[in-house]
Structure formats: C-alpha cells, structure tokens
C-alpha cells in the first residue's frame, strides 16, 4: 500500500549543500571577534577588535538593506528611488519612540516576571512592532502609486515621494521631535544592546539578523509568490492574462522590501544611537543601488557581496585617495554598469562554466607539460 512520495525529503545536512560556502562564512563571522581577540590580545570590547566589529555591523545592516532593495529592482523589476524612505522611516520610528516615549514609560512602569525585570524587553518589542507597522505603511503608500503609473512616471514619483519625506524630516517645523537638520542623537538604548558598552551583543544580533533575513528572502523568492513576482518583471501583460493580479504581487514585493528595509533602519539606528536626515536621503538609496549593481541584480548573494566590497572600498579608498574617493568609486561604478551589467555574481553565474572550463584547460596544459 505504501506509495513512494514524489519528493523525498533530503537529509537535514544535505539541504544546506547549496549554502555550504555561506555556512562556512557564517561560522567564520561568528568566530571573528574571538579570533581577533586571541590574535591581537586586545579585549573583546576595545581596540582594533571593537573597530572591526563596528565595520562588520555596518556591513551586515547595509547588506540587509541592499538585499531588500534587490527584492524590488532585481526580482520585482520595480525601479523605485524612494527606498531610503523605508530605511529612514524605520530608523526614525525607532529613534522617535525611544527618545520621547520609552524613557517616560520605563520611568513610570515596571514589568516583572518573578524577580526578572523585562520592562526594557517589552518596550523594545513594542517599538519594533511600531517600526514594522510604519515600514509596511510606507511600502503600501509607495505601491499605491504604482497602481496607476508605470515605468518612468513611477520612478519619478517614487523619487519625488522619497524627496518629500527627506524634506519633511529636515523641516524646522518639527524641530522639537525630529531635531531637523541634525537629526536625533544620543537616543536612549537599553544597556545590554548599547553599541559602545556591549558591542559584541549587537554584533551577534546583526549577524543573526542578516542570516535570518537572507534565509527568509531566499525562501520567499523561491516560493510560488516569489516566482510570480519574478514573472511579473519579465512580462506583466502575460501574467495578467494567465490570471494573476500584477498589482497585488507588486504590492507584496513592495511591502516585504519595505519591511526588511525598515528593520534594517531600526537596527542601524540602534548601532548609531541616532537617526539623521542622511538615512532618508537619496544618497542612501543610491548606496543600496550601487551595492546591488556591484554584486549583481536578481541574486540575493550579490547585494551581500556588494555591501562587503563597498564597505571595504570605502575604508581603503579613503586612505588612498583622500576625501574625494567617491570620484574613483563613481568611475568604477560607471565602468561596471557599462561592462559588467549583471554584477559580479550575475556574471559569475553566466560565465561559470566558461571560467571553470578555462581553468581546467589550464590545469591540463600544465600537467601535460610536467609529463613531458
């Protein structure tokens, strides 16, 4: 009676076969602060170890932001120039609530389980729920405009909406809440995730955040919904004819991208203990765009690689070329757009067999020579 199922379930470890490099990298990153600590001898929370942890934290957060942007432009084929609004929206929601609401609340109430004080945990949870809510709302706002508009009109409208958000954040009318030009600084953050006191905690949190986001997005992209989103990018009319509603799927793409970007923004706000207008500005969107293009659009590993390269480059280019390093970077960007339009990962995936074949040929040639 027993029927063999069509799809046999793979053994647990084999399921991660595709991600083995990433798993190794994850392990390396996890061990990084401790190894660094052993090598340099400086404590976990000071000196060069602390500095590189900080750099890696920025990399993790920006990688998530770039991935969420890739969900839009790479997978959804939606050219939105207002993605920083989600990032900054998350950051500002977090900072505003933590600055103006949380200290009040913590001062007034205590929530205890037995003798365990979980007030701060509850506050963080509520704030993060608010962040999620706000970023989803921003996603909905942006996708609502895409119902009537397409292509260039849509790109410009997103740009305009993003700019409007930026202007409102900078407006002096709301100075007492948002701090206008300077933004919010020294935002209250519970001690156990304070980046100056407990950098290791926030390092681990953002690392886990990156991995979880990557896995969730990968699952999402490979799910039927994700497939429809990708198909929408290729041919919207055909999808509509088959019977899918493109608007719905575009909304899903928008909301999920905005969701991840908002969380990344909130985390970035914890890391900086501040929220500044730069986080909402077009520069932030362009940064995510550059990372995505660099690594490869339409792949999830690409943006991560792009973020890593960008973070490294900005470190070294600054020392090599001085304050005008973005010039060199911009030229590089143009060259990549011209000659490597699918990014590093995309080109690698396209030319993988060629490169491997060439490599094997070379090896064979070398070994033959040895034989002779």
């Amino acid at each position, binding site marked *: 009676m027993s029927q063999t199922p069509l799809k046999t379930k793979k053994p647990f470890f084999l399921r991660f076969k595709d991600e083995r490099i990433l798993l190794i990298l994850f392990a390396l990153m996890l061990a990084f602060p401790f190894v660094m600590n052993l090598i340099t001898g400086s404590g976990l929370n000071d000196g060069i170890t602390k500095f590189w942890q900080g750099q890696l934290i920025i990399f993790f957060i920006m990688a998530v932001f770039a991935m969420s942007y890739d969900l839009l432009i790479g997978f959804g084929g939606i050219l939105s120039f207002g993605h920083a609004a989600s990032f900054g929206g998350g950051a500002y929601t977090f900072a505003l609530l933590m600055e103006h609401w949380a200290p009040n609340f913590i001062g007034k109430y205590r929530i205890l389980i037995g003798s365990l004080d979980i007030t701060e945990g509850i506050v963080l949870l509520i704030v993060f729920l608010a962040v999620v809510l706000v970023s989803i709302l921003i996603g909905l706002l942006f996708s609502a405009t895409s119902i009537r508009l397409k292509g*260039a009109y849509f790109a410009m409208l997103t740009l*305009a909406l993003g700019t*409007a958000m930026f*202007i409102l954040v900078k407006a002096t009318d709301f100075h007492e809440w948002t701090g206008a030009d300077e933004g919010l600084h020294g935002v209250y953050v519970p001690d156990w995730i304070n980046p100056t006191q407990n950098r290791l905690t926030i390092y681990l949190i953002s690392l886990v955040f990156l991995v979880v986001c990557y896995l969730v997005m990968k699952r999402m992209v490979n799910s039927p919904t994700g497939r429809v989103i990708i198909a929408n990018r290729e041919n919207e009319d055909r999808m509509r004819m088959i019977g899918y509603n493109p608007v719905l799927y575009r909304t899903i793409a928008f909301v999920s991208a905005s969701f991840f970007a908002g969380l990344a923004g909130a985390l970035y706000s914890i890391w900086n203990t501040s929220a500044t207008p730069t986080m909402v500005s077009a520069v932030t969107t362009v940064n995510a765009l550059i990372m995505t293009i660099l690594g490869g659009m339409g792949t999830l590993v690409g943006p991560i690689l792009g973020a890593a390269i960008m973070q490294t480059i900005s470190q070294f280019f600054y020392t090599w070329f001085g304050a005008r390093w973005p010039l060199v970077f*911009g030229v590089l960007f143009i060259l990549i*757009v011209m*000659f490597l339009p699918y990014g590093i990962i995309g080109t690698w995936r396209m030319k993988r067999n060629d490169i491997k074949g060439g490599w094997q040929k070379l090896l064979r040639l070398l070994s033959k020579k040895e034989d002779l």
Partner: protein
Amino acid sequence: MKPENKKRLMIFIWSLVGVGVVAGLYLYAGKEPFIRTTLSGLTLGSLFFMVAAGLTLIFGLMDVLNFAHGAMFMLGAYMGWQLYTNPTFIFGMLPALLAFSTGIMMTSVIKPYLIRWEISSKWQNFLPKAAYFLALVIGVVAFWGFDILQLANTAMVAATTTTAGNPLAEISAQEPFVQFWYRPLLLLLSGLLVAFASSKPGVKTEFAPLDEMKSKLVLPIVLFGLTILSIIIRESAPVAILLMNGNWRFVISIIVAIAFGFLFGAIVEITLIRPLYVRSFFIVLMTLGLSFVIQELVQLLWDPLAYQMVRPPLFAQPGKAANLMEWLRNGSSTIDVFGVTFPTYRLFVILLGVVMFVFITLLMTKTRLGMIIRAGVQDPQMVEALGINVKRVFTFVFALGVAMAALGGIGAGPFLPIQPAMGEQYQMQGFITVVIGGMGSYVGAFVGAFLLGMGRAFGDYFALKLSLSPAIAEASTVIIMIIVLLIRPQGIFGKKE
C-alpha cells in the same frame, strides 16, 4: 457629447478654475504681495523650464531618464562662472576637449570602412573592449602631471578678492607649449580609439553607406581647426576676455556654457549612453553614476564651497529704475514693476526662459530637424525605416538638452550660490515639471514649469504667512504632482498610451 466639445468644455472649466484661483489669491494677498510673488514664481518657473525642457525632449525621443541633468545644470553654471572670472581655466582645458571630440567625431568617417572589415567574431568582441581600455589609459597619460587644480584654484582667489581695479591681477600662467603639445595629441588619439570602438569593426549587421564621405569629413575638420586655433590663442584669449566690458563677458560666458553643454552632451551620448540603448534599464543607473562623478569632479576642482558670481554691470548698479529704458541706460539692480521693487536680473531670467521656449517652438515646428524629432517622439523605428539616421538625431537632441540645462545653470549663476549641490533640487523640480506637463511635450514642460514655479512661490508665501518653514512649501510640489497624476496620469499635455 462629441469628444471635441467635451475637450473644449474641459479646457473652459479648467481655465475658469485657474482664473478663479488667481483672482482669489489676488484678493487674499493684496496687490503688492501678489505681484511680487507672481514675479518670483515666474523666475522660478523659467529656471524649472530650462531644466525640464531638455529632460522632456530627451525622454520623449529616446526614453532616457537623465539623472545627470541636474549635474549638467550645475556644470553649466560652473563653466559660465569660470569664464566670467577665470578664463584661463577654460582656455587651458579647451584644446584637450576639442581634440578629444575631434577624435570621436571621426566615427562617421571611419565606420563605413571598419564594418566591412573581415574579422572573426572573437575579434569583433575583443577589439572594441581593448580600444576602450586603451583610450582610457591614453586619456589618463595625457592628463598625467597636468596641473588642473592650479588653473581652477585661481578663481577662488579671484572670487574672494575684488578684481575691479585690475582685472588681470589674478590671471595665472598657462603651461608652456613645450610641455603642453603632446596632451591634445594624445587625447586626439584617445578619441580616435573611442571612435574605433564605437563603430563596431567587423559587425556586418551595422549599416553605414560609403557615399557622401566629403560631407562627413566637414565636422571633424572644423573641430580640428578649432583645436589648432585654441592651442594658439591659449595664452592671449584670457587676457582679452578679462579686459572686456563685463556685459559682453557675460554674453560670452552664456555662449561658452551653451557650447560646452552641447559638446559635453554629445560626448556623453556617444561614449556612455549609446552602448546602453539595448539595455535601457542601465541608462538610468549610468546617468546616476555620472551625476555622482561630475559632482565629485567639481568638488575636486573647486572644493565643496558655495561661490557668489558677480552680477554683470547691466544688473549691478545700486538704485531703482523707474522703467525699462532707465534700467538699460543706468544698469540699475532693481526695477519698478507695477509699484513693486524687483531685481532686474530676475527679469532677465524670465526673459531667458521665454526666449528659449520660442527658440524650441521654432525649432520643432519650422525646421526639418524639428519635424524629424517630432516624428521620432511618435515612433523612432518608423523614422529609421524611412531612411533617417536616428542615432545622429538622438545625439543632437541629447546635446541640445544638456546645452539648455547648461544655459539654465549660467542663467541661475548670478543669483544662486554656485555650489556642487545646486543642480539637485532643480533636477527634482524638473522631473516633477516633466511629469506634470507630460513626458515628451515641450509645451507641457513650459506650462508645467510655470505652474510649479507659481505653486512654489505662493507656497512659500503662505508658509511665511502661517509661520511654517519653506520646507513644507517645497514638499507641497509633490502634492501638486500627485494631484495632476491622479486626474491625468499622462500629464497635462501627454498623450495616452
């Protein structure tokens, strides 16, 4: 109801609404604030139009969203300002630029021969890439050791100290010819390599006839002659220009900004945008990167500071003129318009915008080229099928658009601070204008620009009155855009797809 009648009714209703709004504002604000706000709205609208006209033409014809347009606006301002205060810089750079463009313009001459070249597909792929790379290397070698910063820096000295007494006090020396001669030569070579690469050697599917070679040679020869001329006058011309009357110097700087914009636009279109037409998505990204590069380059040359350009003498004399004649005679800085004191330079900006609109209208409706452009907006493939070289028209329109943005830049120069970020907000407003007016329609851009300018000016007025910050008024332009898009998604003058 008949469609025409319905259209007429709609136009009637909307103009009634417009008149009502204007009358309401007049009654609410009173005569003097109304006129003042209207005039500043017209000034803003004129500037918006200068940015938006290029954007809309470029988008309408070749579906290119040019995100570097604001940077080109800024570049126009810098170039005009440089000619006005520090012509040494322009004349020092001119031979290099001209030599490079001479090389590129050889494309149409060498292309018919190169595409008939018998080479394997491997070489067809490899040769252009190698040529681009070599061109880049040669370009870098050509500029190696060339002290551009010193040439550019003079202007900063000139901007801080008054040169009213002796205009030649700040003039800096050019590089001696013995060191300089090889730079234009190398750049000519670099341009030739770009021409070689962009003419796709060996690709049989490309089309280029072998006839009319003589007429194709005209442009490169003229450019080559200009290169030689610019090398000769390198040292004497700056002196001559600085000794000139300020008004004529300003006219020349406007012409230089336009010419520079045109040349720069043509070079950008040929080298950067043309290879990407097959992947139009990447053009947007490329122009974004380009705007980044231009801004950084400008900051490298002139530091990230804001400069104030001296107004030409026609607009500089303190005092108020009662009418136009008195202004032209005395060169007063303000003029009386219906009882309101208004800066004369802003009137000039409004005039500039209107003149540009007239020029575009004439170009589009009365010339053969305009006819081709209008046809190209409708259907580029069909125009190409009729035997017109659409690529060249593309280059021309892109160059024209950039030239108009550069004109806007130098027009804005004397009353806005000249700084690297000055183009950004105008680009944003230009985009909004284009969307409101309808993509590809220059009349739409004109109407949209003045609508938006008025919106901004009255928004600022109300923000002041309600004690809000001007930022709110700036954000409110987005609201205008959204309202227009909700009523007419294709813009006011756009055509339904």
